[in-house]
């Protein structure tokens, strides 16, 4: 099995006895209620999805990630995992003293061992991570709306919040045992925030031809307006796997995390996370984790050149389309036929058809998948 990023799978979860003691002690601690996105970050740290991180980044690590896309120990890391606080509220937080992190409803989530607090420049952060400071970019807008102080230190999970998708929630330790049980030595990870069309299926199966198993890993969490709802993505993939995959070759589990739309930097981040889940390979398609026209179509592939030590092999795919002459899914490298013979896999077009109650052609989307999506009254985020 592939080694976790940094060599060791992090696990920062309290035992039942430790939980009891922490809950008792925490009565005198300050509390920070976290957004759903920060709750997911805490869980991802605790279960090792973000290995080797053991908490929210300190100032030196934060600046190193922004300036060099690496942690101070030289390991690749491109997206800073941070926790912000308001200037006034931060005055109550003293480095060296614990804080109780809670979810939005006030339920205890984790012990936060505050080590430092520091100021930062939001424009610099946005420019380094997203390559733009345009406030219309959803990731930039989120950074500009962050509070002014960053809090840093390790966390220990008290209790993971309940999820609507427990059936699909596996930690890296669990996926590693799963892959071992399946007898997979090589596993290709597929990141998605969409329902599958035939082009996705083709890419997954092309990758699966060269690996032992496929790990479909949809991102569950805050997404843009117009994106498919999480339950729709899961139901659509369930249907695809049921009808078109061998049971022993493909599995699906969710990743609770917000999309940041950081394009190339996020592609590296996604690769690191899948390596921690036990994937030896990851599929990187056109405009991976991009939004609008902020990144060139293959920037998310080119960036891998800068990280020869990533430890997971990226499989790059170009845009695919269905060619009526070839009678198959192809790309411009392998198909000589003109545009008139091509059927593009346009997410927008498929979405519009589904909204009108039309089933897309079989060349674009499996009918079983289309029917499942159409079974939802409101399949898109509003």
């Amino acid at each position, binding site marked *: 099995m592939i*080694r976790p990023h940094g060599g060791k799978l992090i696990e920062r979860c309290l035992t039942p006895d430790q939980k009891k003691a922490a809950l008792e002690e925490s009565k005198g601690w300050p509390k920070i209620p976290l957004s759903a996105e920060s709750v997911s970050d805490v869980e991802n740290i605790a279960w090792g999805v973000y290995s080797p991180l053991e908490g929210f980044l300190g100032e030196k690590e934060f600046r190193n990630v922004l300036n060099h896309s690496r942690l101070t120990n030289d390991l690749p890391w491109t997206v800073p995992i941070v926790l912000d606080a308001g200037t006034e509220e931060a005055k109550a937080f003293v480095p060296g003293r614990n804080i109780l992190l809670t979810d939005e409803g006030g339920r205890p989530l984790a012990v936060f061992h505050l080590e430092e607090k520091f100021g930062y420049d939001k424009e610099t952060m946005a420019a380094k991570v997203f390559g733009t400071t345009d406030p219309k970019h959803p990731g930039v807008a989120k950074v500009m709306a962050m509070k002014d102080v960053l809090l840093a230190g390790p966390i220990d999970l008290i209790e993971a919040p309940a999820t609507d998708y427990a059936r699909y929630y596996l930690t890296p330790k669990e996926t590693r045992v799963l892959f071992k049980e399946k007898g997979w030595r090589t596993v290709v990870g597929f990141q998605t925030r969409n329902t599958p069309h035939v082009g996705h299926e083709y890419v997954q199966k092309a990758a699966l031809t060269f690996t032992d198993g496929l790990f479909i890993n949809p991102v569950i969490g805050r997404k843009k307006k117009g994106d498919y709802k999480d339950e729709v993505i899961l139901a659509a993939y369930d249907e695809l796997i049921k009808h078109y995959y061998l049971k022993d070759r493909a599995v699906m589990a969710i990743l609770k995390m917000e999309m940041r739309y950081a394009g190339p930097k996020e592609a590296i981040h996604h690769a690191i996370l899948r390596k921690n889940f036990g994937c030896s390979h990851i599929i990187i398609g056109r405009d991976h984790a991009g939004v609008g026209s902020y990144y060139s179509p293959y920037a998310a592939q080119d960036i891998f050149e800068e990280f020869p*030590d990533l*430890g997971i092999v990226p499989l790059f795919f170009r845009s695919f389309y269905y060619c009526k002459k070839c009678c198959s899914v192809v790309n411009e490298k392998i198909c000589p036929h003109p545009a008139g013979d091509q059927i593009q896999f346009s997410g927008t077009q498929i979405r519009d058809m589904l909204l009108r109650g039309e089933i897309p052609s079989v060349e674009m989307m499996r009918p079983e998948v289309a029917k499942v999506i159409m079974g939802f009254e409101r399949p898109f985020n509003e």
Partner: protein
Amino acid sequence: MDKEFTTVSIPTSLYKRIEEAIKGTEFASASSYIVKVLRESLSKDQRSEDVFTKEEEEKVKEKLKALGYID
């Protein structure tokens, strides 16, 4: 890593070969080439056995069976 660089000695002849080899490539200097090659080399052995205890593994297998991932 900020302002944290160090000097490593390599044979002058090798240095000259590297300078020659990187002409017209994306590498701005022999140093950037050497950094990339070393990082690549250091990351080669990525496989290892997971170090879960038998007990941990059995517990996980039970969950995977309950969720239908394995029989």
